């Protein structure tokens, strides 16, 4: 006998053989149609339907001609697919005298969104970092004010901001608008970043201090590279918010800077005359495309980032 362990196991096996080994064996049988599965997938399917319905309606309508739309059923698939509404929405729909469709505002939207997202995230992440790792006296007070600020309706701040920007000489400029977006993005983003940085082990921060890294050194070299998920969350929230913004874009800039949503609003909100629903829907989808793409591209990171930034704290 060279292996007593083997002996023991073999003995157990032999004993086992002596037992009545009748009865179930292997994995617990799983019926694909168990009540539980029907409940789960059924619910999810119904809910998905509710969520997809509007997208479906938008899609279908945007591919129909106006006569077909007037005939009624909004849920019916198009009998004759036409891409004209898309072309019109993008290239020829008129806003006042400018008949370039959404394309006119597209680059403006990009010009607004990119720096705004960048600046607002930069500021908020530094705020969050300072709040989480370098608490100084009074920091909590300012943070509390910010959080309360998250509840102030935008409309209320419209007027004071006009005055502030006017006094700063930034009214009507891109810089002014970028600042406005940063200000309004600050509360929620700061909250997210603060929570995220709080969850980074404190020892890492201490190690970096011993290694002689200062405030900025730790931020750029240690914290930033570790924070991809939360940056993705912040980016998605900001891109969505800023891209879709209409009010600030239009109040704080001038026509040569108007974002795409102004054209969308113009196309959708023309009060008089017949509504071209197909063009409206096409315009709607086109406008939503950028945030949607950002979304689909980074969905997984989003959940991870949310888990890290929103849940703790």
């Amino acid at each position, binding site marked *: 006998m060279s292996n007593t362990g083997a002996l023991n196991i073999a003995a157990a096996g032999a004993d086992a053989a002596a037992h009545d080994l009748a009865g179930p064996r292997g994995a617990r049988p799983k019926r694909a149609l168990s009540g539980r599965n029907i409940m*789960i997938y059924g619910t*999810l399917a119904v*809910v998905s339907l*509710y*969520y997809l319905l*509007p*997208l479906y309606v938008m899609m279908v309508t945007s591919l129909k001609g106006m006569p077909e739309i007037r005939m*009624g*059923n*909004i*849920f019916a698939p198009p009998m004759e697919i036409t891409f004209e509404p898309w072309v019109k929405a993008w290239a020829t729909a008129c806003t006042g005298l400018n008949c370039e469709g959404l394309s006119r505002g597209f680059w403006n939207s990009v010009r607004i969104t990119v720096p705004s997202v960048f600046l607002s995230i930069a*500021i908020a992440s*530094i*705020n969050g970092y300072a709040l989480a790792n*370098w*608490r*100084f006296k009074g*920091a*909590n*007070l*300012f943070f*509390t*004010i910010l*959080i*309360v*600020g998250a*509840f*102030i*309706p*935008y*409309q*209320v*701040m419209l*007027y004071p901001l006009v005055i*502030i920007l006017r006094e700063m000489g930034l009214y009507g400029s891109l810089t002014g608008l970028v600042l406005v977006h940063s200000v309004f993005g*600050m509360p*929620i983003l700061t*909250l997210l970043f603060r929570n995220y940085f*709080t969850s980074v082990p*404190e020892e890492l921060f201490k190690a970096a201090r011993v290694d002689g890294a*200062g*405030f900025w050194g730790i931020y750029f070299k240690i914290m930033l590279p570790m924070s991809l998920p939360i940056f993705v969350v912040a980016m998605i929230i900001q891109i969505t918010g800023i891209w*879709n*913004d*209409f009010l600030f874009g239009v109040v704080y800039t001038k026509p040569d800077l108007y974002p795409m*949503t102004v054209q*969308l609003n113009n196309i959708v909100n023309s009060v008089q005359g017949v509504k071209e*629903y197909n063009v409206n829907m096409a315009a*709607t989808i086109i406008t939503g495309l950028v945030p*949607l793409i*950002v979304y689909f591209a980074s*969905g*997984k990171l*989003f*959940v991870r980032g949310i*888990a890290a930034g*929103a*849940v*703790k*704290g």
Partner: protein
Amino acid sequence: MAATRRPPTLFRNLNAKIAAIPMILTALVVFVGGTAWTVVYSFTNSRLLPREKFVGLDQYERLWSSNKWLISIENLFIYGICSLVLSLIIGFVLAALLDQKIRFENTFRTILLYPFALSFIVTGLVWQWILNPQFGIQAVVRSLGFESFSFDPLYNPDIVIYGILIAGLWQSTGLIMCLMLAGLRGIDEDIWKAARIDGIPMWKTYLFIVIPMMRPVFITTLVIIASGIVRVYDLVVAQTSGGPGISSEVPAKYVYDAMFLSQNLGQGFAGSTMMLLAVIIVIVPWAYLEFGGRKRHV
């Protein structure tokens, strides 16, 4: 043993303080300053332009005698409660469903989340259309032979606010679901195992054990939902413009209309101030407990 001097407190963490300047400025100038300005001018009879003609509480008297304002408050109340309760419930239930190690989790999650990427203008427009009795759901169901079927929430003053809710929930529950899902994933696996061994049914485990453990998630979620509720404006404008009649007015819209349609800034400011007051009464004690009480290092 020459003792070096203690550096003055102002310069400790100097970089952190410098870095926080944008936040401090925003907090003080924009939020506090803007708010104070608003409050001050709510005591004037400013019309189109702010004027320092103080009229005491006149604006407030008018505000509270305005039917439109009262209805706005009522609507916000209904919308707020329903939206809060329903988003939490639906968001949580969906998260719980997605947490069951199901197939296609990513697909479902994407479907639930995508409306969050769309603007309120879009949301309002689409739902206005789907709920339109002439082409929307009502028409379709009727054309299937159910002639008496009636579903026109946006056109019935009694239930219009619920019609708005349908779209509001559509837009926001995805995010709530995501938050909840993240929270659920953060629960210690062992808790689930312990509950299963104790023979506690799934729903009870959620209700009595898991939900109470998710307090931080619920708080973040609450902040997000609540701040959205107070601000609700675009959705109403896009769907009903406050109609039929004034039955779907909300405070933010009242304020906006007062300021820019009626050109009565004073009245708008008075409305804003009331909204702020309500927010502050609810939020400040909570925010202080949540963020002010605890201290960490440095």
